[in-house]
Each structure stands twice: as C-alpha cells, then as structure tokens.
C-alpha cells in the first residue's frame, strides 16, 4: 500500500528574519554567603542583560531550604539594558543556625509579540547562599537599604498614629463645644 501523503502547509513559527539573535544574559546573585540571624533579612542583587529586544522576565523559585525569597512578580526590561534586580532573602525566625542555599530561575521572553514560536531561555540554578548565625559578625552589602525601609515604615506608622490622635482630639473638642451658629439658633 502506497503511503498516502497528505501535503499540508505546516508553517511553524513564521518569522520575519531568522538571523535575529536573542541575546540575553543573567549574572549570578551578589553577594553570596550573606550572614543573617533568624528573623533577619537582607537583599541581594543580580543583573539581567538585554540586547536588541525588550524582555519580560519571571522568577521561578527552585529550592529554598526554608529560606524565603521575595521577588517582584515579573520584571520588564528595556532593550540594551543592564537591569539590576534586587530581591530580598528572609530568614524565618525558627531557622536553625547553618549554611543554606536557595536556587531560583529567571525565565525571560521577548516582551513584544512575535509572529512565530518563541524560544525562551530559562536561567536556572541561580544560587543565594546564606549563613544563618546566632550573632552577626559583619554587615552585608545591602543591609542598609533594608534598614532604611524599616526606618521609613516606622516613621510612617508613627506619623499615622500621631495624625489619628490629633483628629480624635479635634473631633472630641468639636463635640464638647457646639458651634457659635448653633448657639445663635438656640
């Protein structure tokens, strides 16, 4: 039996030009061997390098060993950028002292619509290593930023409380002394 061939125009990934190269790179996170105590957090940074196309990159956490990694849901990177990403690593309070290593991936795809099938690189095994210690012996490179955030949150909280107290007393004062117009009416 002759093999019946069905001819079908099966176009896959219609492209404008095959010679376009998707150039992107991801650096390993810095710093490594972050020293933290249980309950503390710090930041680390890594870089995504784009070429001629804008990218949308999404973090994928592979392994945490109990550490918590805080990323933005996705990162939009313009073309020809060296884009620094600064996630946070958080040590849960009950984490035992020891060395930890979390791994994550960054999956990046062209932000713009393409007329064919996308080829998507996924950069994996990006490590974040943390030494959990009972007492810190040194600062980490990005601790200060975290401290600033804590300070700002604290100041904001205090400001809100003060504002609430002021409003409370103003309302209370207004209730205790009826307005002049009300007195006139009476």
């Amino acid at each position, binding site marked *: 039996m002759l*093999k019946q*061939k*069905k*001819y*079908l*125009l*099966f*176009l*896959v*990934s*219609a*492209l404008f030009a*095959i010679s*376009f*190269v*998707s*150039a*992107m*790179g*991801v*650096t*390993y996170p*810095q*710093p*490594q*061997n972050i020293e933290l105590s249980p309950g503390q957090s710090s930041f680390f940074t890594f*870089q995504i*390098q784009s*070429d001629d*196309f804008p990218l949308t990159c999404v973090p994928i956490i592979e392994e945490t060993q109990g550490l918590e990694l805080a990323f933005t849901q996705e990162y939009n990177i313009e073309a020809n950028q*060296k884009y*620094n990403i600064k996630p946070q690593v958080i040590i849960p309070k009950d984490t035992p002292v020891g060395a930890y290593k979390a791994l994550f*991936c960054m*999956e990046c*795809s*062209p932000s713009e619509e*393409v*007329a*064919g*099938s*996308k*080829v*998507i*690189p*996924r*950069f*994996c095994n990006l490590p974040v290593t943390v030494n959990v210690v009972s007492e810190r012996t*040194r*600062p*980490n*490179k*990005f601790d*200060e930023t975290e401290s600033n955030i804590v300070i700002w949150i604290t100041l904001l909280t205090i400001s809100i409380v003060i504002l609430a107290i002021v409003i409370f007393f103003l309302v209370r004062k207004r209730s205790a002394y009826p307005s002049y117009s009300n007195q006139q009416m009476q």
Partner: protein
Amino acid sequence: MDKRGKFKILLILVSFILVVSFSYIVISQGATGQFIIGNEPPYVVNNTFAIKDGANSGDWDNVFDPVIDTHDKDTKFRFNVKDSNPDVLNVRLCIGTAINPSTTGDCNVVNYNFPIVAPGIHSPSLGAPLTYTYNTNPTGTLEGIAETISLSSLDCSGGFCSKTFYIDVIVDDNSGEITTTPFTFNLINNAPSVPSSLNPSSTHDPTPDLTWTAVDIDDGSKDKWPADTLTYYAQIGASSFGSTDYLNSVSAVPAASGASFISPIPWGTPGVSQAVTSTFARIWSTDNFNITSSNYEATLNLIDNLPTFVDIHLSDEDIIAGEASCTVFLPNSCAINPTQGNYSSINMILSVKDVDADCSSFATTSQLTLCLVNSTSLDTCTPTSNNFRTYNIGFNAAESSADNCNYTLSILSGDSQGIEFFRLPGVYKMYLSPVASQAGASISWSSGYLWEYVSLIAPFYTDTVYLGDRQVDGGDGIQLNQWNPGLSLATMTNKGNILINLEWEATDPSSDGSTCDGKTATCWDLSSDLSNALQIDDDNIQETDSSNLFTANIVETPSRITFGPFGGLSICDSINCNSPSLNETLNTYFHINPPTGLSPGTYNTQITFTV
C-alpha cells in the same frame, strides 16, 4: 640871632666852664689809691655739663644724676663756659678712653676746638652755651690710638654693656689762664634678647616663610634711647646648628622676618605615614652697637604627610559608595559583572587621605593591577607578576576636596581595556600601587584586596525558530506523518563565562493560539508519540547521525531532555568565539513529524531551553 638866643648860648658856655673848674678842684683835693684787677681763669659754669640720653627735651643727664650715661652713640654734649674777664676764650673738648686724656695726650675719641668765644658771648651770668654732637661735629685731630664712642662685646657682662669715656673741657682765655674741667660719662647698651618662637617649627614648604620673636629692651625710653634696630641672622643646615646648607640669611629689618632660602630643604625618606627632614636652625641678632644676642637654636622639620589608603571602589557600573567598596563587605569583595559577548566596563574610585591637602597641586597617579590569580593562590599579583590588566588611575579634582583625594578610572563597555566576557568567574587578587606625595609613597600601603568577576550565563540564540523543511529554506514544505528535516539553522553561542548545559522542552504546537490540551485538529499533542514528533539536531539530516550529535526528541513541557555538546557549551577563548578546538557554538535544527489529523494552518510552539 636875637638877644634871647645869644643869652642862651652864653649861659651854656658859662655852665660848662664852671663844671670843668669844679671838677678839677675836687680831684685835686682827694687822697691818692690803687687796686689791681688780675686776670681770672675761665671756667665751665657749674652744673651745666650734660649729655642727651632721651628723646624728650628734658632728657639730659648731668651731675645731679647718679650716673651720667647715654645709649646714644651719636650723643650730644652741652656745657657753658665763662670768664670773668672780657677775654676771648678758646674751648677744646677732649674725650678719651683713659682718665685725664688731655694731660696724657690721649684725646683719642674727640679732640675738638670750638669756635672762639668772644667776651660778649660769655658775659652773661651763665656764660656761653656750647654743644657738641658726636658724628655731626668734627672729632678734631685725635691723639693716640683713635677710638670711637662705641661698644664691643668686651664691654658687656650678663647682657648689659657699659663703657666709660673721659672728658676734659679745656678753656683758654688767651691771657695766660687755662682751665681743664674733667667729666665722665658711660655709654650703655642692653644686648638683644635671645630670639625665640621660630614659626613654623614644622612645615610642608621646602622654602617656608619663617618668623620668630626677637626683643631688645633698648626700646627708646630714657636711658634706652634711641631704640635699637636689630639685624637678624638666620641659618638652617642639614647636619648641625650653624650649618648653612639651606639658609644663610641676614635681614636688617626691624621685626622678625622672612628669609630667602639658598636651596630648598629636600624631602625626607618616606616612612609609614610621613617623610620628615629635620633641619637645624640658628638665629641671632645684633643691635645698633653690633652687640650680638645669644644664639637661638631650634629644629625645623620639613614634613610630607604621605597619602594613606582609605578605600577602593570597583564596579562595572556607576560607583555607589556603600555598595562598591572592596574593603567593607569582606569576604564579599567588589564585583564586576561581565558584559555578554563584549568587554566589561570598569569604574573605579581610589580614595586616599592626604593630610597636607595638596594632592591637587601636583600630578600624581596610581596604578590598579587586576590579576586572574585566585584569592587562595600563593601566586602574587603585582604590575610585573601575573598582571592581567594594569590601569593608570588619574587624580580627579572634581571628586576630591581638601584632604580627601580621589583617583578615578572609567572604561566603557566595549573598550578593549575592559575585561573580556569569557574570563572565568572567581575572586581574584588585585594590586594597587601607592599614591605618591612629594617625598614619595608610604612604605605601608594597602594593596592586598580582592575583586570578583561574576558568573554570567549568556547563551546567544534566536528568539524564534523555523521547524521542518520550509520551501523557502529549500525544502518541499511540511508533510504530515513523516519526518520533515529541519533546514533552518539556529546557532547558539556561549557569550558568558560559565559552561552551559542545555535542556530543552516545548509546548504542544497549536494553530489557533490556544493552549493545547491533548490532540485535536488544531493541536499537536507532543506527548502522544514522543519518539516520533519533534527532534532537535545539530545537522539538517534527520535520519543519520554519524560524527555529529545524536538527535534528541524534545518532550512536552514541563519535562526536559538534554541536548548539547558533551560536557556543555564551552566558554569562548576570544571575543570572536571562533576557536576550532572548542565547542563554543551549537548549531540547531528542528525536525518535525506532525501526525495526521491536523488541520492546515500555522502552528506555533514555545521552545524553552534551560541553562
């Protein structure tokens, strides 16, 4: 003439005759007497001799003072002479250094003859006033060994100088009487005080302006008049007090003075933080009488504070001081991120402290040497040993202020002075040459810091691919239920610095843009016939793989298959990534065998590779 006029004339004549006649009668009638008026000696009027010893009009020393003295070497003398007889007086002023100078013939300081004093001049009760000013009036013809009204160090004791001069005033009345009246006076002087308080005692200027304090108590007050003008002598030498290697100066100004150096003080030998040259300064002064003070001796140090290391910041981006330090966050050192497929940029700031705050006044540089010597290696990193890149770092005035001096380096990405992307990641040694000052550089300089070259994953690859044998690629189009060899080449190149192991996966191709879930007329379920669906290959022939990589069946996401050079996609060894001996690149083709039952259309899949 009338009768009345004749009578008057007659009366006058008669009266004259009578007066003459009566006078004759009286004289001729008295007793005869005689007295003799002798010639009296001339003299110096008592208490009139004085010497000027102060600026005010009343500042004269005379016999009423305990001592007749003066500090004025141009002193003025005064006295009065008189003679009871109306004689013409010759007056001579004799001043000598020994007693009774006029009698010993030793008027060796002044031997001055005043102009003659006429009788009418000295006739008043206080006689004739005479004045003599030394160094204004002539000294006359001196006798013996001539001397002056002056002092020498032999006349001094304990800082006080005094010399007695002997005066004879000789008055001759030219009638046989000559009187000699002796006086004495002391010429007094205080030696200048020892200079003090040399300023500065240390300096950063090889030819500094020097000041010091000098005092002479002969300040112009009475007995100390006129005020002395001091002449200063300053010497600065290399080896001992009194040597004159750098300064040998005389300055006749009335105050502590600057002095001109004959040669700059040389900079010393650098130590840890300073280079010090100790010099020996000697200063003294002389006064109007050329009396010399004692020497003031002090050391003067030329100090060059050597630049000391503060920090070094290194980054591939703009320096953020808190983050790019190579010294603060150890063991994490300053890091440089490679630039994919290119030379990395390098920015560096070297901060040093220069206490002298003059780093902007002279051009200095430093050198940064980056080595690819691992931090744990025993190999050294110097500009001549294992150096990978050596950069000259220039002083940056805009980034510096006062004693904070910054030296900067900026190399843009793509500059061949940057670091190639393919250099292996690691923590490496660096060497920082010390910043020199005028005297040189510190012998203790921090240079043992590390830098890190970060790992970069950078597979250059296409972002879209053609599958199968399109006619445009020379094929015969896509046929169902048979292999359609991939003809479109997509090459992957490792443009990072770590080995790349590749895993591949794909979503089910669909023609309507929907997410496939099982085989339909518009969806090709890759998992339904895994070994007979979508393949990746490094050549465009589906059937055979002789010397090339074997084809691999790409599985449906989330499963993955491994395809790539054995051992991974190699790291390049040049910017061009064209080494024939390395697997730096990977050619890929995609063969497809779409099943029957698929509707005509353009099918899309999403191929993901994981590194």
